[in-house]
């Protein structure tokens, strides 16, 4: 892979055309720039040259033999002929060999119609076959995992898949064993190939050897209506292509070089298995298809939204605007969240708007980096984030940057993650001590002496100093952090840290906040925050707010999501709209949240799947959700992209229509929109930072919005660490990508990834408690308890119990009280 910064160029001739390309480019890519297509199998631009299949033979003047264009780096004045009789004959011969034992499976092969082997044979192969003997038979349809099937007869041993596993996902999970006729792609000891990124091999396999089990025989590719759209799981917003046949979901592919232009600014052409195989929710039997009231009577969408709007208005008229609130979701689109905040601020006059349970304010004191900036950084500082579980494709990008672009990775986390492997340095602080560690790092960066941290954070001052020195020594620093995993005042400390790094001499610094959810960045930008208007306008900015939103715009600080729950419990909050969120399971408190919601006079739940929360609702509004609705989302890198619908529902309006009709029910003057881009256009007028965003601007690759500046970074000084009481351990809730929730339900093809509840304990604590790996234990906090299997490991430092959220049934959030305060748990056998 040539470095992106390569500036030297060479000029050569290919088929009589003059080409100038950066030095180090291989002939295949050079030819592509002038529209000459050299056929390949083993070569893949993201994997680099390999040269094992010989499909790309070309004639190079002054070379005695044909050369492989995929490994041939071009040189000055080189003359390459791709269509000389010698080259044509050479390629014909290669194809004859490749097809020697290839089964005549095209009619029943899932790759048929989009198969490079078919295409290359058609264009470059011999007209007639000379191999009319019985072919060598091998195993067909062997499952490599529950979602990937291999047909050994069809494999042409190009090794794309094994190299992908080696170079891109860096798991070396697939290898080529044996030689000659007998060679085959295999996993270690034939274990299932179940990495987080296994599905990508289906896209890159140039034949139908590796196929998507969930798509097996479901349709032929020419039946499909393909929609280039976005994954709706995590914040990376990977570009995917959803294939639909007769309005029925068929498959997901990565938008990559195989079918379109990959979006290198987002996903580099790869997606994770959750994105590929976790799409079953669009046809889940658990979907909310019709609106209904609390008694279960079905309502027409228009009646239901009218009822919701008038009822909420009635409550504000009786009890004041502070008596209603909105809990949104980082899974909504910008349009949906924008319209909801508009409804609540303009029509209902309240700032009780939120979408999260952690602390975060919009805006960064440094630049908001795009995902692509990781590659060009000198250093990546990863704080409290576990990309492998939280934003998988980010994991690939970081590994790529470390392996191929010499990016230094420093990890600062309270748990062991997969990112420790590529990291140049990795510090593990005690659970809950992030504020202190960040304070110490800031001091070190300011060349102040660092206080002792061993006791409280488990990190030596020297380690902090070394890290500070690395940061100081790097030109471009990209800080990636998970705001949801920062407790207490760490959410302020991280901003202070960014400001400090950004303020160092000769330093470029940017940050990528990786919060859970598809559109957490967009949600903040759209003003789903009790203290900020869209575009990060703080309530104190009343002048600007008034010009944009009118003199009536409420300026009284609103309630955060958790405060709304508290006020609901105390009876002060009367009406609440919950949009695509499931507080009963996902919010701290668990069952107590349900109690609070039951006290509300009026609970509207607007969701696409039945949840524990829809069960409590006085009115359920059906949401079509991703797959069915158009909209834009803003990814972790601040890039706004269009999430096009792939499926159509004619019997229910899209969410943006539904919400805008609610607004119109209260204000007949309010605009109605022709399509979702109508809302996008309004956003571009009303949301600072989104001025340039419109339909055409974000077409294809999307476009970064301008990040808002950060309001003043608060305070200084490290907080005193909270002390544990009678041997209790501090709880750390970790994430697991394939959690068994409403999205990945029991019928999901990914159900083999579901895990049982596990608590990770450090050996020291386990010994003190007399617990061994495999023991059934209870994790207890107050009245709440969660059963789990103990695993003794070094995943976290002593003094903590780490429990990944693996399912909704686990009930883990019941253990958590106020997320700002430490949660202490007892482990009981």
């Amino acid at each position: 892979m040539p470095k992106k910064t390569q500036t030297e160029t060479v000029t050569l001739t290919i088929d009589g055309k003059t080409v100038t390309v950066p030095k180090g480019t291989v002939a295949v890519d050079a030819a592509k720039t002038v529209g000459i297509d050299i056929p390949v199998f083993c070569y893949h631009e993201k994997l680099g040259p390999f040269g094992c299949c010989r499909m790309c033979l070309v004639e190079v003047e002054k070379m005695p033999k044909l050369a492989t264009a995929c490994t041939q780096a071009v040189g000055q004045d080189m003359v390459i002929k791709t269509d000389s009789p010698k080259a044509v004959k050479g390629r014909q011969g290669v194809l004859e060999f490749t097809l020697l034992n290839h089964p005549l499976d095209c009619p029943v092969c899932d790759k048929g119609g989009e198969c490079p082997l078919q295409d290359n044979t058609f264009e470059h192969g011999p007209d007639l076959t000379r191999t009319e003997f019985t072919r060598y038979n091998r195993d067909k349809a062997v499952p490599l995992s529950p979602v990937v099937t291999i047909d050994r007869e069809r494999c042409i041993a190009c090794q794309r898949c094994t190299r992908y596993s080696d170079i891109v996902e860096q798991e070396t999970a697939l290898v080529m064993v044996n030689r000659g006729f007998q060679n085959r792609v295999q996993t270690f000891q034939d274990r299932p190939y179940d990495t987080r990124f296994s599905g990508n091999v289906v896209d890159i396999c140039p034949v139908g050897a590796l196929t998507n089990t969930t798509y097996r025989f479901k349709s032929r590719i020419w039946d499909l209506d393909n929609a280039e759209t976005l994954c709706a799981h995590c914040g990376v917003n990977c570009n995917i292509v959803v294939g639909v046949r007769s309005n029925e979901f068929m498959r997901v592919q990565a938008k990559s070089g195989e079918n379109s232009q990959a979006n290198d600014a987002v996903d580099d052409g790869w997606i994770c298995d959750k994105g590929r195989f976790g799409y079953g929710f669009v046809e889940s039997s658990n979907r909310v298809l019709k609106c209904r009231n609390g008694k279960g009577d079905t309502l027409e969408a228009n009646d239901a939204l009218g009822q919701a709007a008038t009822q909420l208005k009635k409550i504000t008229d009786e009890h004041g605007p502070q008596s209603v609130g909105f809990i949104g979701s980082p899974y909504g689109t910008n349009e949906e969240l924008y319209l909801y905040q508009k409804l609540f601020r303009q029509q209902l006059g309240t700032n009780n708007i939120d979408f999260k349970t952690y602390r975060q304010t919009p805006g960064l004191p440094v630049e908001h980096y795009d995902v692509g900036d990781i590659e060009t950084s000198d250093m990546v500082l990863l704080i409290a984030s576990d990309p492998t579980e939280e934003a998988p494709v980010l994991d690939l990008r970081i590994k790529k940057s470390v392996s191929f672009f010499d990016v230094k990775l420093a990890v600062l986390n309270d748990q062991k993650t997969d990112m420790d492997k590529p990291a140049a340095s990795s510090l593990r602080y005690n659970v809950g001590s992030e504020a202190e560690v960040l304070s110490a790092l800031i001091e070190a960066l300011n060349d102040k002496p660092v206080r002792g941290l061993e006791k409280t954070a488990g990190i030596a001052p020297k380690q902090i100093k070394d890290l500070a020195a690395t940061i100081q020594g790097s030109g471009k620093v990209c800080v990636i952090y998970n705001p949801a995993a920062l407790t207490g005042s760490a959410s302020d400390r991280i901003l202070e840290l960014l400001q400090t790094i950004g303020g160092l001499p000769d330093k470029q610094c940017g940050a990528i906040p990786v919060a859970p959810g598809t559109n957490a960045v967009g949600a903040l930008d759209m003003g789903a925050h009790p203290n900020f208007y869209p575009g990060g306008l703080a309530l104190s900015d009343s002048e600007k707010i008034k010009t944009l939103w009118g003199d009536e715009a409420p300026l009284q600080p609103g309630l955060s999501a958790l405060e709304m729950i508290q006020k609901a419990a105390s009876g002060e909050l009367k009406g609440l709209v919950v949009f695509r969120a499931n507080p009963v399971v996902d919010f701290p408190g668990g069952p107590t949240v349900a109690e609070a919601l039951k006290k509300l006079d009026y609970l509207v739940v607007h969701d696409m799947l039945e949840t524990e929360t829809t069960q409590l609702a006085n009115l359920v509004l059906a949401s079509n959700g991703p797959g069915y609705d158009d909209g834009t989302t803003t990814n972790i890198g601040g890039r706004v992209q269009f999430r096009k619908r792939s499926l159509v529902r004619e019997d229910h309006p899209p969410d943006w229509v539904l919400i805008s009709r609610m607004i119109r029910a209260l204000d007949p003057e309010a605009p109605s929109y022709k399509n979702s881009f109508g809302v996008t256009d309004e956003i571009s007028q009303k949301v600072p930072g989104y001025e340039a965003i419109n339909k055409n601007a974000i077409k294809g690759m999307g476009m970064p919005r301008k990040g808002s500046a950060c309001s003043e970074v608060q305070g200084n000084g490290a907080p005193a660490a909270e002390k544990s009481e009678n041997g209790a351990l501090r709880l750390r809730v970790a994430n697991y990508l394939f959690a068994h929730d409403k999205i990945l339900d029991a019928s999901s093809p990914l159900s083999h990834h579901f895990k049982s509840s596990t608590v990770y304990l450090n050996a020291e604590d386990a010994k003190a408690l007399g617990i061994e790996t495999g023991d059934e234990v209870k994790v207890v906090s107050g009245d709440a308890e969660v059963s789990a299997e103990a695993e003794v490991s070094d995943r976290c430092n002593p003094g903590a119990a780490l429990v990944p959220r693996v399912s909704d049934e686990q009930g883990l959030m019941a253990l958590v009280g106020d997320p700002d305060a430490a949660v202490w748990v007892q482990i009981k056998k």
Partner: protein
Amino acid sequence: MISQAFEGIKNLLVGLGVTFKNMLSQPATQCYPEVKREMPARYRGRHFLTRDEQGFENCVGCELCAINCPVSCIHVEAAENTEENRVSLGERYASRYEINLLRCIYCGYCEEACPEDAIILREHYELADYDRDVYVADKEALLVYPKPNEFRVNFLGNTTLKN
């Protein structure tokens, strides 16, 4: 003048000759429907799906017929054969196979495209019916295999055969 009259009489006799010849020869018309015409072997009439000697369906649900059909009147959905439920000898079979015979232009491209000789157009040309719905021929209607020139009186509803 005389030669002109002679020419006229000659032409009259030639014409009458044709008339007399045809008066005595067999008529070309047939008394349809009492008598049904034998069609040439490659006539493109109604479609049928074939089976192999063991009774398995030949169709593997590859949809090549469907993509090749110029009027898109074939709809195929495929499924995988299992040991318990083997429908065809290949890996897959057509779980649904429908031809809209009203839209079909009887071009035979589907037969041409089929890699398994599974769909064939035969000499059966009696395609009239009283009900439009029966013209979407499904697998059940297509998997029958009448003898050559063995016509059904009524092409879908009534399965009695006329000899």
